């Protein structure tokens, strides 16, 4: 592979459609109807991409308002109530309408069938239904905004949410409730697809690691989301009819709400980060052009994170009044869950060791993920210590910690995936110099935004306040400036990626010399994905022994026609 193919420049003139593009899934009708009634997993992935990008910007606007307001210690941009509504909306939109669906519904949808050699997901119509349900939920979120917003924070803690809040809590809960069914249906679809639609030769031990992590994520979707569903129903009933479930005035138990809520919402963190880990496994192996170090350890650690992740929810409640014995066990398990995450980080690093590394956009995003995720993960271990947590609960330290994982980690991986599979999705190569610039900007903008928050949190700055002591202003300003760098870095890819649609070089089936089955089919793939049913005879990441000098090979069996 020539370096110019890895780092292409834009051509000066528009490149006309290639024969592959004229036969691809994108050419199967251009009407709105052909998109809105499609059952093609690739088109549904793009529908999801459009929807979550929209919500990413809605959540981003709320974040911008927050950071703008925090430039000064005085409440000069928003009222107290307005500030509460801004951060609640930011949380609700970013968690449920961007981060949770982000990688699974877009790249999971697009790539899962391609990677296992299937024509589509097991239930294509259910897949489309999942999108419509998601959009309906999103619509309710927008109605919530119009109705005056909600001031409970994204966690809807009772009895504030069920009794005292004067926001549109019922509408917000309805929005999240509806979007949960979208998650459940997507989860069921993915699990069944992985079990039933692997092509001949694609054994469990040959699955790409992205498939393993999407599979684990799907299991969490199916096993955690229903608990959130019933919890939200109970809160809504308490709020609307005044039933006593969580309301202490009626004998109910507000801590019970926290248990039920975090039983979903802690595994939900792994819904956000496991797919990102899957993406990074793909990006790192390709950048190093060699077999992943310890395939089964990386796959197994995804499962381990999924399993242990269900048993750590109590670490959100160390100061809520749960039993100290429970806290001790949750603390121990929360430390344990860091082990499989660390295994992954070590294995990625070992994969890069002595690899033939080409530093391109996708690799920089993946490295950004590893760096930010490691900081986020290590501070997570700090927070798992009860003694430290009592001091740090509800401070900016916690805010910085989960933003490092969920935004620093997962969003970097999302953009990494977008760059790595962009040629497959659209058939065009983008200008890699811009990609590298955007990746670096995201990393540094992010660190500038959230590193100061660790310091402020450690010094006692509580979260969810917009009036703060003068002494924190320099750090707050640094954070706000960093967030504007971050905003530029997030917007930048839209320009050069859309530019590439018209001016980019045609990618060819396998621009990176990668090994997955998705690279054996033309870019963009035809509607049925493969011309003939693929047969697999090699394990994942079967990069040639000679490295980049060798003939590129994929998992596809050589003599499939014979």
């Amino acid at each position, binding site marked *: 592979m020539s370096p110019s193919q890895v780092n292409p420049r834009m051509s000066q003139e528009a490149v006309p459609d290639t024969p592959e593009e004229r036969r691809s899934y994108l050419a199967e009708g251009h009407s709105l109807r052909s998109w809105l009634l499609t059952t093609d997993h690739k088109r549904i992935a793009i529908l999801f991409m459009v929807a979550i990008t929209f919500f990413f910007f809605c959540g981003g606007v709320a974040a911008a308002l927050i950071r703008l307001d925090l430039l000064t210690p005085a409440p000069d941009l928003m009222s107290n109530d307005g500030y509460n509504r801004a951060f609640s909306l930011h949380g609700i939109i970013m968690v449920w309408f961007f981060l949770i669906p982000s990688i699974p519904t877009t790249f999971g949808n697009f790539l899962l*069938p391609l990677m296992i050699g*299937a*024509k*589509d*997901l*097991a*239930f*294509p119509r259910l897949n489309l239904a999942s999108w419509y349900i998601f959009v309906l939920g999103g619509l309710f979120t927008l109605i919530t905004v119009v109705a005056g917003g909600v001031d409970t924070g994204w966690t809807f803690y009772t009895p504030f949410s069920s009794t005292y809040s004067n926001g549109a809590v019922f509408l917000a809960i309805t929005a999240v409730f509806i979007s949960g069914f979208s998650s*459940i249906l997507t*989860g*069921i*679809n993915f*699990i*069944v697809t992985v*079990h*039933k*639609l692997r092509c001949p030769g694609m054994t469990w031990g040959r699955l790409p690691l992205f498939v393993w992590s999407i599979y684990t994520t799907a299991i969490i979707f*199916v*096993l955690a*989301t*229903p*608990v959130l*569903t*019933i*919890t939200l*129903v*109970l809160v809504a*009933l308490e709020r609307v*009819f*005044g*039933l*006593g*479930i969580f309301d202490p005035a*009626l*004998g*109910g*138990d507000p801590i*019970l709400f926290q*248990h*039920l809520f975090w039983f979903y919402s802690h595994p939900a963190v792994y819904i956000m980060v496991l797919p990102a880990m899957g993406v990074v496994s793909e990006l790192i192996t390709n950048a190093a052009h060699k077999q992943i170090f310890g395939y089964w350890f990386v796959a197994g650690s995804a499962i381990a994170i999924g399993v242990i992740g269900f048993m750590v929810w109590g670490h959100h409640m160390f100061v809520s009044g749960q039993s100290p014995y429970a806290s001790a066990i949750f603390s121990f398990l929360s430390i344990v869950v860091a082990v499989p995450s660390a295994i992954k980080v070590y294995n990625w690093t070992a994969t890069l060791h002595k690899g033939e590394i080409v530093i391109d956009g996708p690799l920089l995003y993946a490295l950004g993920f590893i760096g930010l995720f490691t900081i986020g993960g290590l501070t997570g271990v700090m927070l798992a210590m009860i003694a430290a947590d009592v001091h740090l609960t509800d401070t900016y330290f916690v805010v910085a910690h989960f933003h490092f994982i969920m935004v620093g980690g997962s969003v970097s991986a999302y953009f990494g995936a977008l760059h790595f599979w962009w040629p497959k999705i659209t058939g065009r190569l983008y200008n890699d110099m811009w990609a590298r610039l955007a990746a670096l900007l995201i990393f540094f903008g992010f660190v500038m935004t959230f590193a100061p928050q660790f310091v402020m949190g450690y010094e006692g700055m509580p979260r969810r306040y917009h009036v703060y002591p003068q002494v924190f202003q320099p750090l707050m300003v640094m954070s706000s400036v960093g967030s504007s760098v971050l905003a530029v870095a997030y917007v930048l890819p839209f320009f050069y990626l859309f530019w590439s649609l018209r001016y980019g070089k045609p990618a060819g089936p396998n621009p990176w010399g990668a090994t997955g089955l998705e690279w054996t089919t033309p870019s963009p793939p035809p509607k*049925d994905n493969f011309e003939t*049913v693929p047969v697999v005879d090699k394990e994942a990441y079967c990069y040639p022994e000679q490295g980049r000098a060798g003939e590129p090979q994929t998992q596809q069996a050589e003599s499939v026609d014979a």
Partner: protein
Amino acid sequence: MPDARAVQPQFPTLERQNDADHFGMLLFLSTEVLIFGGVFAVAFTLRAEHADYAQASKQMHYWIGGINTGVLLTSSALVALMVEAVRAGRAKLAGWLLGGTIALGLVFLALKFTEYALEYRDGVVPILSDANLHGGVERLFMDLYFVATGLHALHVTVGLCLLGSLLWPFGRARRERTAVFAGNAALYWHLVDIVWVFLYPTLYLAR
């Protein structure tokens, strides 16, 4: 009789497609189990926290609940026989068994709402008619009782619609020997049944 179901393009064989449909339904039911799991978690926690929590259940018409348990278990047996009848190709027998299942499901709902009416008369319905609800804990119990049985009744209704769709518009599904749709509808009905088997002792019997 040739199978009327067509293989969708993403599946290599019809058998694989049937497996997938069955597996998907089981996964969906696991989500339903977890939804009710939340209700049971609330019931057990509040019971552990309040010594006199189950006091209110002494006023319940446990005999109606008992009859309803029998009704629902019988209907579940009928629906299981219905699936076997479909597999054996005896569509007419399957139709009768299906009719029996639906009839018993309707009996369950009728009895359940009779019970609600009796509770309204007794003055133990929170908000609407709470003349005889003594103290907060009794109220707390009845709140959850109505949430749990109401949610269950909703699932009974959905199950009846699902089974009803086997009469019309999917009567064809009763003549398919693989019994994929009929089997899945029956599975859903079994879920409705098994949830009740746990709800009944939790709300009526464990005092």
